[in-house]
């Protein structure tokens, strides 16, 4: 609790103590009124001061002023306990609200913990601690175990494991070695690292993430705007009604002023929109915080709202759905064992640097004994020929096979095939493909289960390959062989055909225009990529596709909470207004209803 909060609480407690004492004093006692006034002033003085100041500034629909009028009117009609209760409970509501807001802000402040205090600059063999802002790209910094990496850079010396959880929500440490790029905000766990800084502080990952989170609240959701608009006419309307209620009926119906002023006071008590107005941004703030703890950065409440309405999810293939690198996906031997096929091709490709060859070699777990290879010849555009263990080997594409009179029985269409012939006989092929991420199928299944109707894949890759991946992942629609500039056009068509909102998921490298064009742009992976953070509305800090459904879940929960609060708070207020106007509600009940609604709405918001 802050100092101001403690003071506030003290005032409330003292006032409450005096108030309760006064309630037990017999009505005839001369002590009763002074005690009520004391209790009233102790809790209400700050409010009276504020309302006086606001009145001077011409703000008549200010909540402080309304409370002042309501309580003074209650005093005037000799309803002393009610007058004090209204003020006291209003203050309790305020205190509670303040506490909740501070707590919620604290969760963002924790994120601000990302911010490094200083950097150890290496300068002529000396280590000087300087503020991170002062370090220029190209300079070398030293990061000891337990310290935060202050600026983005490249490791030039030292190995260590990094805790990236603050950025990615990923709890598993990441091992780094010289040559690796590292991001600011990660914590160095065990080794001393020397890092060559690549970006100045203001452009470093930490600064950009902090800026993004800090400004997230300023991009407001439609519900938020709705509620502030609502508040703008709600308060004046209720106040005018209260005024009419106090004046008109006694004049027209020559009723008792007491009754009608009493009813007017109940109106004023529930005229405050603040709890309602705060509970909505509080919910969104909570939602954004919950998302960022999982490594999902949401640039504003409005995007959380959009995410909850997504009907159509368009995804880029390479790097988003797939790993973005080649790997052996299938081994189809013909007359020999899988092991022998893989080994022979790995040997044949032993000297090749081609990505496909690399993938095959990665799949072969043992060391390659190069002495067994002889007469190796690279055949550009075709493959290789070699003699391995005395057998004549050809490994390469279909053209190579055909040129040598070897006919594969059938040719699979997915990925790239490396065919093998041994002594002129076909021995099978190895399929090398950019394979889907391990959890991709499961992640997409979850997304579908959440009611997102259509999954569409965009890719520049060949149609057969694209369709293969789509079939494996259960994707509804595929647009393949798109040039980068065609992707925006393809997305526009999808936008027209899809009834709901459309999100695009990409890795942000060359699909920035598509990210920007979609109703909602989600950038995946490549954490810290400038283009991704700039163009996307939501950034998923690690490569994990399952974070999309996690984000949708958070978004929907947040929206649900916001809606519940709106319906609940407005509903109760209208009900109390109606019953209060008819005289069925006492000031007591109105106070409890008002403060109760605030507390419940705020507690509900804190669930987000």
């Amino acid at each position: 609790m802050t100092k101001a909060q403690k003071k506030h609480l003290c005032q409330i407690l003292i006032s409450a103590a005096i108030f309760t004492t006064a309630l037990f004093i017999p009505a005839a006692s001369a002590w009763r009124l002074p005690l009520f006034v004391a209790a009233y002033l102790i809790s209400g003085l700050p409010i009276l001061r504020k309302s006086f100041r606001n009145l001077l500034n011409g703000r008549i629909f200010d909540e402080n002023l309304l409370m002042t009028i309501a309580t003074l009117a209650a005093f005037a009609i000799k309803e002393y306990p009610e007058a004090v209760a209204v003020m006291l409970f209003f203050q309790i509501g305020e205190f509670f609200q303040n506490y909740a807001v501070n707590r919620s802000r604290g969760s963002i402040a924790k994120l601000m913990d990302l911010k490094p205090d200083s950097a150890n600059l290496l300068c002529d063999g000396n280590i000087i601690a300087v503020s991170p802002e002062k370090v220029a790209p190209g300079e070398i910094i030293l990061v000891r175990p337990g310290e935060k990496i202050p600026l983005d850079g490249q490791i030039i010396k030292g190995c260590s494991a990094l805790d990236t959880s603050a950025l990615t929500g990923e709890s598993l440490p990441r091992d780094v070695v010289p040559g690796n790029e590292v991001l600011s905000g990660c914590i160095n766990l065990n080794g001393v690292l020397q890092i060559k800084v690549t970006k100045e502080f203001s452009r470093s990952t930490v600064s950009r993430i902090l800026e993004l989170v800090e400004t997230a609240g300023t991009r407001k959701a439609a519900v938020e705007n709705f509620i502030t608009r609502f508040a703008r006419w709600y308060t004046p309307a209720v106040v005018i009604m209260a005024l009419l209620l106090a004046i008109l009926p006694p004049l027209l119906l020559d009723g008792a002023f007491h009754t009608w002023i009493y009813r007017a006071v109940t109106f004023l008590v529930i005229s405050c929109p603040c709890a309602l107005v705060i509970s909505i941004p509080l919910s969104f703030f909570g939602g954004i915080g919950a998302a960022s703890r999982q490594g999902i950065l949401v640039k504003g409440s409005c995007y959380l709202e959009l995410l909850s309405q997504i009907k159509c999810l368009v995804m880029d293939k390479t790097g988003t759905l797939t790993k973005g690198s080649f790997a052996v996906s299938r081994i189809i031997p013909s007359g020999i064992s899988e092991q022998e096929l893989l080994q022979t091709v790995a040997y044949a490709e032993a000297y090749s640097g081609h990505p496909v060859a690399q993938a095959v070699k990665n799949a072969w777990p043992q060391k390659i004994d190069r002495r067994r290879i002889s007469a190796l010849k690279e055949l550009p555009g075709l493959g290789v020929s070699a003699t391995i263990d005395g057998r004549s080997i050809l490994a390469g594409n279909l053209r190579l096979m055909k040129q040598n009179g070897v006919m594969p029985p059938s040719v699979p269409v997915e990925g790239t095939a490396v065919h093998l012939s041994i002594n002129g006989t076909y021995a099978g092929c190895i399929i090398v493909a950019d394979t889907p991420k391990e959890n991709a199928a499961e992640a997409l299944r979850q997304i579908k289960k959440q009611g997102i109707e259509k999954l569409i894949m965009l890719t520049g890759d060949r149609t057969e390959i694209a369709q293969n991946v789509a079939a494996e992942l259960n994707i509804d629609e595929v647009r393949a062989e798109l040039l980068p500039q065609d992707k925006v056009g393809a997305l526009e068509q999808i936008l027209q055909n899809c009834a709901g909102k459309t999100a695009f998921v990409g890795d942000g490298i060359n699909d920035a225009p598509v990210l920007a064009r979609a109703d909602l742009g989600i950038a995946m992976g490549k954490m810290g990529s400038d283009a991704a953070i700039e163009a996307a509305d939501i950034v998923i800090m690690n490569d994990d596709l399952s974070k999309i459904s996690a984000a949708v879940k958070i978004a929907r929960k947040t929206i649900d909470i916001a809606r519940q609060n709106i319906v609940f708070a407005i509903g109760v207020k209208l009900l109390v207004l109606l019953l209060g106007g008819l005289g069925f509600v006492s000031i007591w009940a109105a106070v409890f209803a008002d403060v109760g609604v605030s507390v419940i709405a705020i507690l509900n918001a804190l669930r987000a």
Partner: protein
Amino acid sequence: MRKTFKIENLDCANCAAEIENTIRKIDGVAEVSVSFMTQRMIIDAADEEFGRIMDEALKIIRKVEPDCEVSE
């Protein structure tokens, strides 16, 4: 020019909304957003008019929330 300010000691969300709505009415303001939760205010306006708009905005803030502190 688009500038972000820190705006502290805001009393309530409703006041933040009121500040936002009143600043929006200043001539030349392209965009304004006041967030009660993050205590940030973003103002987007033409460079040459920014000084005048800021003066008016600060006046509005002082009127609605005299205890408010605004910093860059």
